[in-house]
């Protein structure tokens, strides 16, 4: 039974207490999965990524520097391995062929062989990226290309099969109008499909586009949004805009061709930790410190589609677009909740302009997983 529900989960969410939650949007259910059956704060989820290419496995990077493998088919954690080296939490996790890549806070990027042995073997490759890394992202088109960026750590694009030097290292913008150096704090990076460009959002509320193909190492485009650090970013399915979220819970869609603000999304009350858009449908899942998973519809009409309370603060989310009879499937979001989700219309064509809060009494019994 756990397997069946695990398979049909649309959004996977990881939490600060180490629980991986699978949220089924059709049936408005959330199921909990833990390694030991008990939540543990040491196993707080810091990074999530899809394991195999067919989205049957999830790699979960935890605060105790272990990477656990979770199978969505069986609904259970299958193995884990320790990934020592460097200090700090995982800032990026990615899977490439038969290896997986981890990057930690202190800037140690390692490539590990992905077998299920518990014993930590030596990493295949190790790179020093620079201290204060906030995000490492893999290029979905080229799995051996990763980008890293952080606080006072400029954006660098690395080719893991190439040399030890970064393929592209961004240059800081010119001094501002007082001739002071503009500080750097890259919080989230996304690769733009179809070209070599990258978009970053910074802790100084800027959104920047870089183009490694051009001779200019400075950002090609820069816009600002709001007054608070932008913490999460995702690309929209349309391909022309990004959605960013800041520490106040404000979500905005920004067109990166011109740098225009297209619109905002309401609803979040706390800092946004992760955003994820569906690859084809105009839906956005957001999770954050206010412990609620929200699904927004980005266009026609723009509004909140669905809300799910997950009692624990959420860290990461992923959506798996699976093909099934269900209309929409979302990749995992890191969510921790066992509540039944409020009843929302089945078809996503329903106008989601108002939050529907008809709560069904009674929580689900937790799905144990061993």
């Amino acid at each position, binding site marked *: 039974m756990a397997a069946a529900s695990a398979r049909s989960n649309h959004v996977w969410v990881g939490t600060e207490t180490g629980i991986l939650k699978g949220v089924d949007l059709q049936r408005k259910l959330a199921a909990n999965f833990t390694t030991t059956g008990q939540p543990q704060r040491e196993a707080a989820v810091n990074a999530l990524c899809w394991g195999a290419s067919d989205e049957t496995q999830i790699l979960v990077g935890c605060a105790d520097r272990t990477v656990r493998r979770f199978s969505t088919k069986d609904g259970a954690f299958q193995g884990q391995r320790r990934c020592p080296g460097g200090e700090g939490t995982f800032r990026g996790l990615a899977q490439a062929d038969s290896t997986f890549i981890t990057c930690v806070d202190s800037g140690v990027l390692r490539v590990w062989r992905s077998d299920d042995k518990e014993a930590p073997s030596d990493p295949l490759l190790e790179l020093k990226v620079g201290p204060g890394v906030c995000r490492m992202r893999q290029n979905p088109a080229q799995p051996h290309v990763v980008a890293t960026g952080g606080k006072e750590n400029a954006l660098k694009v690395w080719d893991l099969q190439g040399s030890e030097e970064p393929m592209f290292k961004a240059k800081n913008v010119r001094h501002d109008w007082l001739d002071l150096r503009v500080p750097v704090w890259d919080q989230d990076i996304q690769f733009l499909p179809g070209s070599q460009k990258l978009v970053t959002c910074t802790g100084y509320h800027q959104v920047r586009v870089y183009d490694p193909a051009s001779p200019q190492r400075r950002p090609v485009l820069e816009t600002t949004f709001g007054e608070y650090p932008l913490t999460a970013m995702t690309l929209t399915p349309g391909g022309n805009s990004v959605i960013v979220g800041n520490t106040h819970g404000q979500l905005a869609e920004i067109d990166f061709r011109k740098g225009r603000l297209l619109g905002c999304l309401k609803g979040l*009350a706390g*800092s946004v930790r992760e955003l994820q858009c569906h690859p084809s449908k105009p839906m956005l899942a957001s999770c954050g*410190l206010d412990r*609620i998973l929200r699904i927004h519809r980005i266009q026609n009409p723009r509004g909140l589609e669905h*809300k799910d309370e997950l*009692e624990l603060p959420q860290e990461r989310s992923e959506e798996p677009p699976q093909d099934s009879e269900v209309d929409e499937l979302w990749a995992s979001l890191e969510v921790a909740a066992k509540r039944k989700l409020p009843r929302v219309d089945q078809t996503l064509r329903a106008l989601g302009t108002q939050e529907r809060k008809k709560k069904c009494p009674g*929580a689900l019994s937790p799905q144990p997983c061993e």
Partner: protein
Amino acid sequence: MEEPQEDAVPGDGAIEGGVQPPKATAFPPGFSISEIKNKQRRHLMFTRWKQQQRKEKLAAKKKLKKEREALGDKAPPKPVPKTIDNQRVYDETTVDPNDEEVAYDEATDEFAPYFNRETSPKILITTSDRPHGRTVRLCHQLSTVIPNSHVYYRRGLALKKIIPQCISRDFTDLIVIHEDRKIPNGLILSHLPNGPTAHFKMSSVRLRKEIKRRGKDPTEHVPEIILNNFTTRLGHSIGRMFASLFPHNPQFIGRQVATFHNQRDYIFFRFHRYIFKSEKKVGIQELGPRFTLKLRSLQKGTFDSKYGEYEWVHKPREMDTSRRKFHL
């Protein structure tokens, strides 16, 4: 057909017997009282209509009462009047007492050392820069209410510089009373080692001498705490924050109690001394300052309003749209 009737009887929109608002005929539509141009006549007609309405209402009430008495025990229960509190929109984040996830979360959050009795509170109370008399007096009165608290003058120091010094001196909480135009109007409560920071709006501040019929000054005994009505997850966090200000073991000899009562998202702080006159009867005297708080934001981590991550921010245009929805 417009009939400016103010029907006291709910659901009864039909025409009742008795004098109706004067109309030429029921159909086609006639005039209503509001169309009389002469003010004196209009007023007269309206007074007459109003008296009639009152009479009918009284008659209806009497009839209902008679019917209830006639039915005796079989009478249907009296309908409960609707208030904003009992029409409250059900909040999905209301904490279920049996919820294990929330229980685990609370057992391991930043207040766990306090609730596990590993630390005991030590509070630093200060104000915004250059406080005026009211604020200073409020600080001193608060320090008598909260045991083990120290008042320091804020010499224009930045909070981000004060906080590491407090941590090194083993303070567990920092209270900053913010002042505007000579009256205190804000409160920042920061739990120290790395705990959340809550920012409140403070209103209705009454110092001790402004409280009527108050008792003598509070003694040094550790008071008991009452936390009322903190039901949602956010409410739980705030409630625990208040609880962690006071030492664990209250001294019942002192008979003093501090109450944080949450109603409709406003938190009322009162400080009383109680005495049991008999098994069921209690007498209370209000001591100490009283004020009302409203939560503006809860930030994870110690005070950092620009770069900190917020767990909850009050957004008036999004959250205050319904009169029956509350967040605490």
